[in-house]
């Protein structure tokens, strides 16, 4: 596992050329090399799903993925699902349903929801439950996450994909403190 591997990957729409050791996990590349700290490490062993990102459109536990094998891959993290100043409909739906407590698991849920809705814009409750098995929430508002995915599906069916962050703040009377 010695020696460095050259990896070209596109992360959140930007191209990177990296040299990484063979044992480096995608989770560490994203968090510590590239600064995408929306990718969380809960368990480091495939169980909690807080580290899930999209690799070539598929959900992947980045704690179980070696970066060295991702040459040519396209990676999306929570930071890359909407352009600057905008929120993705799924993010807005999660904010509006207010299920989030500590928020540690939320990026994982949103990435899994995106993988699902990219494949099926109108999933059944059973499908939503099935896909959301990918992530554990210790604060435990699962039923609200199911509602959030349903709500996101409604937005997307109406063609609403990105929403201005300012509009969301105004609508929900959210203030940025500090």
């Amino acid at each position, binding site marked *: *596992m010695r020696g460095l591997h050259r990896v070209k990957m596109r992360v959140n729409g930007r191209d990177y050329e990296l040299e990484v050791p*063979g*044992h480096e996990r995608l989770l560490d590349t994203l968090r510590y090399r590239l600064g995408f700290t929306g990718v969380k490490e809960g368990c*480091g*062993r*495939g*169980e909690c*799903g807080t580290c*899930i990102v999209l690799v070539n459109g*598929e*959900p*992947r*536990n980045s704690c*179980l*993925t*070696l970066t*060295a*094998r991702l040459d040519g891959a396209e990676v999306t993290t929570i930071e890359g699902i909407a352009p600057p100043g905008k929120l993705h409909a799924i993010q807005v739906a999660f904010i509006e349903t207010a299920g989030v407590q500590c928020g540690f698991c939320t990026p994982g849920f949103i990435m*899994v929801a995106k*993988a699902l809705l990219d494949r099926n814009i109108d999933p059944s409750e059973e499908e939503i439950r*099935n*896909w*959301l*098995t*990918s*992530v554990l929430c210790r604060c435990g508002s699962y039923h609200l996450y199911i509602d959030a995915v349903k709500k996101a599906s409604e937005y997307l069916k109406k063609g609403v994909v990105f929403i201005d962050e300012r509009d969301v703040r105004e609508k929900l009377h959210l203030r940025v403190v500090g």
Partner: protein
Amino acid sequence: MILIRDKRIKPPKYLVDILRFRDQLSYVRLENGYVKIGALATPWDLSQSILHRDERFAGFRDVWSKFGTMSLRFMATIGGNIATATDFSDYLVLLHVYNASVRLRGVNGERVVPLEKLILERRKPDLKPGEIITEVLFPEPPVGASSAFEKFDRRSILVAGLANSASYIQLEGKRIIDVRISLDTTGLNRIPGRLRELEDYLKGREFSAELIEKAVEEVIPRSVAKYSDWWASGEYRLEMTKVSVKRSLLKACKRLGVV
């Protein structure tokens, strides 16, 4: 990766990335009377194939619905599931009832090995240095056959299973023409295996729920041994194995419309 991290195995000197062949080795094909699955097919790939649409393969849907979590179903491969070679390899348990073999390829050529001969010990498949599994294959089952897989644990998902079983059954009317049953482990070696004594008991008889009940209660206690650990006692595992086998047999029969 997890075993290395937990210091349960030594880090390898070299790591070969076989996922580069994913495009070539993630197929599911019906060919010359055989079902052939590329070793790098993931549960997701299987879910998009005939294996999830045809009742003859219904057990594949059962394994899918109990396999890890959704995101892991995009990552795990069927070849890796077999090579892991433990009582927790769910596809391995199911593939036993399809009389599956694996195609191995290495620098010295190719060989086809039946699953029952492949697993030498827990975590020890008979793979020579430089050899990998490239394909899983099994005879295409006849119409009138179906299968089921049962996984039992304290939760329904993200569990290894305390008593897992698979059944394959072919009926003519109510007569059992063919039946194959496998367990996560039949003994203390903790590798999946077939329950031939129970199969022989059932073969040729008329199916009924009472027959299944009687056969399982009679045969399993004398032909199966289960280990104890801090999750569950051997006695509990054995008791739940009986339940698991009854359920998987009944589920397969229900799929054939006789329950």
